[in-house]
């Protein structure tokens, strides 16, 4: 029972696994290929990427790449081996597809709490390729990549979040501070 939409979604998934763009991952639900979960990492070298993280073990600070105390947990081992212990914002989204895909865009929405001029309070995204500039050529990877670049490149002229838009235009420092705040929140959110 494979419709063109489903076939195409399978392809998108395969492509995403074989050739994943940086900082993006996504997968459909087990029982429903029309509903996907995705995660976008904040782009590097932006307020969205979180900055350095200090790892504390048993009350002892461990410098990046430094020696671990004996009997450290395996998780810490992984952390130590990562080239840069930068834990960027990890923002979760859902993508809901219809049988009209790829002729119609999916409905994309952020699950994590966001503070961005083009993202509504409920998580909906104001992005042209998701509305009138949609093309059937775009696939899941392309969608997620566009959203990722939207994060550090907002368009204050079509504000979905007026406060964020205003802050972005007038008070960059405050804006960056708020961004870091939600980045940190994204680590702890389930």
């Amino acid at each position, binding site marked *: 029972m494979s419709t*063109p939409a489903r*076939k195409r979604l399978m392809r998108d998934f395969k492509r995403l696994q074989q050739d994943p763009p940086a900082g993006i991952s996504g997968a459909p639900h087990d029982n429903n290929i029309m509903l996907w979960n995705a995660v976008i990492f904040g782009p590097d070298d932006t307020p969205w990427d979180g900055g350095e993280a200090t790892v504390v073990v048993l009350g002892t600070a461990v410098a990046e790449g430094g020696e671990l105390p004996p009997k450290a947990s395996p998780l810490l081992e992984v952390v130590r081996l990562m080239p840069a212990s930068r834990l960027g914002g990890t923002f979760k989204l859902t993508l809901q597809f219809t049988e009209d895909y790829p*002729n119609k865009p999916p409905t994309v929405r952020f699950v994590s709490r966001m503070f961005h001029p083009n993202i509504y309070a409920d998580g909906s995204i104001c992005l042209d390729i998701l509305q009138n500039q949609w*093309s059937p050529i775009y696939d899941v990877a392309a969608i997620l990549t566009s959203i990722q670049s939207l994060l550090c490149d907002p368009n204050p002229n079509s504000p979905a979040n007026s406060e964020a838009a205003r802050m972005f235009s007038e008070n960059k420092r405050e804006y960056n501070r708020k961004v870091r705040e939600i980045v940190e929140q994204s680590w702890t959110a389930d």
Partner: protein
Amino acid sequence: MDSEDDMHDANDLESVDDDFYSGDTAMGNDEGDDFDFVDNESDDSEDITYHRQQQNYTILSEADIRLRQEEDISRVSTVLSISRSSACILLRHYQWSVSRVNEEWFADEEHVRKVVGLLEKLVEVQNPRELTCGICFENYPRDRMTSAICGHPFCGTCWRGYVGTSIRDGPGCLMLRCPDPSCGAAVGQDMIDLLASHEDKEEYSRYLLRSYIEDNRKTKWCPAPGCEFAIEYVIGSGNYDICCNCSYGFCWNCTEEAHRPVDCDTVAKWILKNSDESENMNWILANSKPCPKCKRPIEKNQGCMHITCTTPCKFEFCWLCLGPWSEHGERIGGFNACNRYEAAKQEGAYDESERRREMAKKSLERYTHYYERWATNQSSRQKALSDLHSVQNEKLEKLSVRQRQPESQLKFMIEAWLQIVECRRVLKWTYAYGYYLPEHEHAKRQFFEYVQGEAESGLERLHQCAEKELQVYLDAETPMKDFDDFRTKLAGLTSVTRNYFENLVRALEAGLKDVGSSNSEATCSKTSSSKSLGTKGKGGKSKATGNNSRLAGGPSHSLDESNLWFCHHCTYANPKSAKACQMCEHRR
């Protein structure tokens, strides 16, 4: 606007039922896009009285539209040496103006191609046997893939889905481009025909047809509900009245119902006002008072002056002075007299809100006066229209049988009803005109109301005669001798009323510059019966108001109304002292 045009406009009515244009409109010369006028051959059987000399619009049926569209496309395709599909895209982009297309194309072909998406075919370098569809990412042999001029290949299924979605989304499908977002290559009808399903192709073709009328500045659909005709209009000829084949008359400029002699702005304001919420507010202001305590508007519907506001307020007060009830009693002059009010009024301590109430009341009354009459004439016209249809369809035959007259002798009936329909329309809009006439322009107002009154009473006489007196002859078992008299009378009334309305139209179009001198002869000689100039809501002013163009034949000077009375029979203005008319000796 010269008098010749006035003649035509007052006779707009005649085109209501004429079959000037059949399905195959005279295509005539194909010079350019503009049709100056179409020589119309009026059907002899419908030839009433006046013959329209010049038409500035053409009525198009669906077949006509298709034909014209095909011709335009062929023309562009030949001149520019491009495919028909490309010509179609170009034309649509430039609002179906062949001249504009030529102009723009020969000015800068490259720019036009880019804007519209008509790229020139690139030379293909490779010829691989298999290609990957850009949408479903499957591989197919070359011959199963299609692409626009840009070469981006997509498979048949994906194309069908893409095109189908676009068509179902609406007329935007006419501007379809290649699915690749970086490419602007246009997808025209030739590709649609190749790739889309049958229903989608039909839908596309329907949108294309509609586009020919909607995107073109010279054409519009007839606004009548259910009418399938379109009108092509030559701008610049001044007269905006269009009468469609479906017998709906409308104004080209604003697409509202035909509203000469009133201008489009006034009409728009009037229609807005009728639907406006502000009138409700005015009513509330005029007919209710605010509770002194909680300020909610209260309407007094009966009873004494002791008002108790509703919960939760429950304040008790006197309606007249809005003072607390506890302060009322016998010493204030009893419950019904309210001395305090009189005193306040005499002292001039008129409340601001009181003043506003008064003004709102006046304004509302004034509006109601005009609206009522506008609406009444509107419904009267509707009734007249249906009467006209019943006369045409059944009554004429019946009358012909009853009175032993051939139907051709009974044309005067139709003429009369057509005149009534048209006059009701004009009269209706003159009320909207009257509402917007500035109050301080007394001379204009008097003149306007005078001319309007004349026209209205004439119309009432005509309408009554056509309605009621006809019934006598319809019901008669045997032919009646005075039927010929009836015919003369009705024809006479028709003609008189037409003159009155011509005057009215002329006066209004001239901006009421007191040009009433030409009407005197017509009215005096043709009136066959001298019923009293009955008025409907004119307040009996028709005798006392108006300029005295009849007397002096020159510029009006305001007469002292109270010193004159106008004779019923010959309309001479007699001094008040005269008991009988000085001209015709009829008693007052």
